[in-house]
């Protein structure tokens, strides 16, 4: 409880550091904040070319929205994924990136990873805004789902923050962490139905049947991944325009809480030693 109070007391600092990150990010570039859109757009073009045009992956049309555009379908999963991956990577490096501060001034160290979550979340909001406009132009009826989208964004942010907190500590002690996580994130992305629809995985799983000796099917294991659930929820809301499954919502909420509590605990029990470990 006391710890929460301390965090609350640092909210102004958190806001300022977040602003610092946001303002400093695209200084001295010509197109400025638009750069934050270029990345997902480039990824969208590449994946659409490779997966839709060449490999001919075909996700189901949105039900009931009736949308059937691969690029839009892709973005509904890719933007949340990118946010997650970027948040984990950046908050992981946030302590090391601010070595000068940590060694010279006392303040609640937690604000460093949180500020990177904030700065990336800010870009994500911007991207999601553009996506919403695109969806509306394509004829999706997204308005009623916006509150739920916002809620899921918060839950995903909590999930990513927890993981980022744990890794930020690990990274101070072992710089291997950042390289390892770079690879883990790539694998994780392909284990999540971001650029291909889950029904391809479902088909494989049905073909194999239960894995001998376990009673599980492949898809059961596949769906343990909380990011799979998040992507499903975002697609349900944005692309299909329908209610996500209640169990799935519960699953991601529990995963996010666990991640956040564990992350805070790990961070808290190590923050005093940070200055000298750096």
């Amino acid at each position, binding site marked *: 409880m006391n710890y929460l109070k301390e965090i609350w007391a640092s909210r102004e600092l958190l806001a300022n550091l977040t602003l610092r990150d946001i303002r400093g990010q695209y200084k001295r570039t010509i197109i400025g904040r638009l750069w934050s859109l270029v990345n997902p757009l480039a990824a969208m073009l590449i994946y659409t070319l490779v997966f839709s045009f060449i490999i001919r992956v075909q996700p189901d049309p949105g039900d009931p929205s009736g949308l059937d555009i691969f690029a839009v379908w892709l973005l509904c999963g890719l933007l949340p994924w990118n946010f997650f991956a970027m948040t984990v990577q950046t908050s992981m490096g946030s302590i090391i990136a601010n070595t*000068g501060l940590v060694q010279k*001034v006392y303040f609640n160290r937690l604000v460093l990873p949180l500020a990177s979550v904030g700065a990336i979340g800010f870009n994500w909001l911007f991207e999601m805004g553009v996506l919403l406009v695109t969806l509306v132009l394509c004829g999706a009826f997204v308005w009623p789902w916006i509150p739920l989208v916002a809620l899921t964004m918060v839950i995903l942010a909590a999930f990513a923050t927890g993981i980022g907190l744990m890794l930020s500590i690990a990274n101070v002690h072992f710089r291997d962490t950042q390289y390892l996580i770079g690879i883990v994130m790539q694998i994780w992305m392909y284990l999540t139905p971001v650029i291909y629809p889950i029904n391809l995985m479902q088909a494989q799983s049905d073909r194999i049947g239960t894995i001998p000796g376990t009673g599980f099917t492949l898809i059961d294991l596949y769906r343990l991944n909380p990011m799979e659930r998040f992507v499903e929820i975002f697609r349900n809301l944005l692309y299909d325009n329908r209610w996500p499954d209640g169990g799935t919502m519960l699953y991601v909420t529990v995963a996010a809480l666990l991640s956040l509590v564990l992350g805070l605990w790990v961070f808290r029990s190590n923050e005093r030693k940070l200055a000298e470990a750096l």
Partner: protein
Amino acid sequence: MTIEYLPLDASADTGVAVRVDHVNKRFRLYHERNQSLKSAIMRRRKSVYEDRWALRDVSFDVPRGSTFGLIGSNGSGKSTLLKCLTKIYWPESGTITATGRVAGLLEVGSGFHPELSGLENIYLNGSILGMSRKELDEKRDDIIEFAGVGAYIDQPVKNYSSGMYVRLGFAIAINVNPDILVVDEVLAVGDAEFQEKCRQKFADLKQQGRTVILVSHSMDLVTQMCDHAAWLQNGEVRAVGEAGPVIDGYLGFVGGGSR
């Protein structure tokens, strides 16, 4: 192992601003210093570190309202002690009790963002030092005035000279209005005019009953400004008390050692 900041309550003031009580601080020096998983696993088998006690059983009181000098040779533990005072390091054992608001000036400009303007950095750095937005709104003019960087206040701080950096950082830290100000040899970079300004500021703080703890290698400065001092040698307190005798003791030691 505690560092405690108590609120300053004038009626119950004991006359001690900071009490350092049997503080020990250890650094672990690993022999292969690359921080990797491989070395961690190797380390498990055979521990290849050496403990270095940067502070050994350090105890002293800093009287409220004094200007307290901390002197000693390079590597004697002065900066480490200041970092313990400001909660950057946590000692292995012992307690530090500070009564009142503590602000440290261990390295100015460490919270500055090079691409942001001086003014934006005042707000950023101020909030890192624990000032609220309202406080900063009130004090920004004082800060700008004290820093004396003039029109450069709207320029990115990467265009500042190192003296201007120090001036701005010092101006912000001073305006935190700490009951206890902790300063680690940062003034040397400022020009004569700025050093005079600082001296004046320290005198003002003293008049207001505030405490300043400063580390310096300039015995002239310490003699001139400090009324109390402590001399650290190899992490141990060699002398503490009135500034004069402590400085003489240290100078005598240095003179004798170099012969």
